């Protein structure tokens, strides 16, 4: 430990933080994801244009090592042992509980854009030979927002894991609660957290992998409840939206605010893991928890 480093650290907020009237809806983030389109994609980390064919299945920038957002199916492909993934509840679809105008159209568009039926894919798989339940969110589907289907699929996946005495790994990426489903979306936070409580009381392992971005209601429920919380580098992780906070305090926030590195520094994640190391990190953790089924 370098004590002098600590001394130079200037806290963003003094203890007596000036109180401004807070803006409502701090946790609602409606940001468009970066969708790789065509032959070239722009890296959000180094701003350089990257020739798509230069990127492998990990979707990491060859120029700066920055992690691109990755869809749920691609994530499963780099995480689960080949042919081991068995999907749960593949056909589950949202209803329109609030009669939100044109919600069906919004959902259709999201399905087209993401190639998935909803904002999450769950199932059972093997990871380096270890049996696990896995849930993977997809930011291409309405910014990974959590409505009835996301909440129900996660809850069922957790309940399966509890029943089968398996560990669960949840890859999070979400802008928060899905406002088109109103208060029912909010209830999913309590529902998933309660299911995790039972999984935890059964003495089972829950690993969260936080990926870019994870904010709002998902950060205020299952994303922050892992026994071990891993994160990809430079992911945005936080509760309130950056712009809402900037609006409240009336100043610009530093670039590293609410990044994985910021969260590590403040004690809210256990480890930052490069995407290429994620699978082996998970299986090492499984092994250290005495789980059965490893490859050796």
């Amino acid at each position, binding site marked *: 430990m370098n004590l002098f480093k600590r001394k130079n650290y200037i806290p963003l907020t003094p203890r007596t933080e000036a109180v401004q009237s807070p803006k409502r809806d701090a946790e609602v983030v409606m940001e468009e994801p970066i969708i790789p389109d065509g032959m070239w994609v722009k890296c959000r980390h180094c701003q350089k244009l990257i020739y798509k064919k230069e990127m492998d299945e990990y979707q990491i920038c060859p120029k700066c090592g920055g992690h691109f957002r990755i869809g749920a199916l691609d994530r499963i492909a780099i995480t689960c042992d080949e042919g081991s993934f068995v999907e749960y509840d593949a056909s589950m679809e949202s209803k329109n509980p609030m009669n939100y105008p044109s919600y069906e159209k919004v959902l259709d568009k999201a399905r087209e854009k993401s190639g998935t039926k909803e904002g999450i894919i769950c199932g059972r798989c093997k990871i380096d030979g270890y049996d696990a339940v896995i849930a993977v969110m997809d930011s291409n589907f309405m910014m990974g927002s959590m409505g009835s289907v996301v909440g129900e699929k996660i809850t069922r996946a957790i309940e399966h894991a509890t029943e089968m005495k398996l560990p669960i790994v949840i890859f999070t990426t979400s802008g928060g609660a899905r406002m088109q489903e109103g208060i029912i979306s909010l209830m999913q936070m309590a529902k998933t957290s309660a299911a995790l409580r039972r999984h935890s009381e059964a003495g089972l392992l829950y690993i969260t992998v936080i990926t870019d971005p994870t904010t709002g*209601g998902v950060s205020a429920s299952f994303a922050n409840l892992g026994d071990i919380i891993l994160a990809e580098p430079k992911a945005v992780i936080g509760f309130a939206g950056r712009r809402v906070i900037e609006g409240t305090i009336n100043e610009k926030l530093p670039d590293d605010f609410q990044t994985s590195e910021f969260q590590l520094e403040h004690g809210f994640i256990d480890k930052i893991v490069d995407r290429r190391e994620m699978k082996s990190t998970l299986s090492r953790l499984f092994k250290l928890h005495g789980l059965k089924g490893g490859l050796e």
Partner: protein
Amino acid sequence: MKTAAEIVAESRKVQRPTSLEFIAEIFDDFIELHGDRAFADDKAVVGGIASLKGMPVTVIGVQKGHTVAENVERRFGAPNPDGYRKTIRLMKQAEKFNRPVITFINTMGAYPGVGAEERGQGEAIARCLFETAGLKVPVISVFIGEGGSGGALALAAGDKVWMLQYGMYAVLSPEGFASILWRDPTRSGEAADLMKLTAKDLLANGVIEKIIPEPEEGLENNLKFTTDILREELYDELTNLCAKTTEELLEERYERFRKFGEFNN
């Protein structure tokens, strides 16, 4: 009959009685307890021990102010992580001494500040939900004013959730909803209608179990009208919940939230 927009305005009214006023009217012997034992005493959340018709209970409430000075001190009733951690501490303390917990909710949501993010606002709310799910004593929550998103839910994940006649509870504000749906925050009245955020709507979809009536002359003019009802209702319901075994209590609490969701399978 008030419109949804009128109810939203009523729930936010600066004269509307706050948690501490409800506590003073309903309970005897309230002793306020301070701090989260980690960082601070968040003035946006108050809590302590009190007697409900002779029954010792733990009481926790989100606290707004009536004046600008009070609101600055109470952060307009928008809790920091320290407030949620104080809530968890008092709930665990209640569990140890086998006291039921009553929470009062009146918040636009968790505070969106730099310090709040540095100290893990998301983690604090998540931990409230997680701890409430396993708490071995009954928890009843009452929305006395405004209820906004995860910052409100954190105190309302227990056995029964009630709401005053002119309370509200939504995933985001009608203004926010209108600006996202129509890019026009001035259409918040229309949004309020669509959002099903009134006590009547929430009772119909099972988000709350009971509506507590308010006096015709306005809550701020006759708080006793409502607190007299609330005192009896709380006492009866807690007596009922305390008669259950821990297993029954926790199973019913789990099912209470498990049922939410509308999907085709």
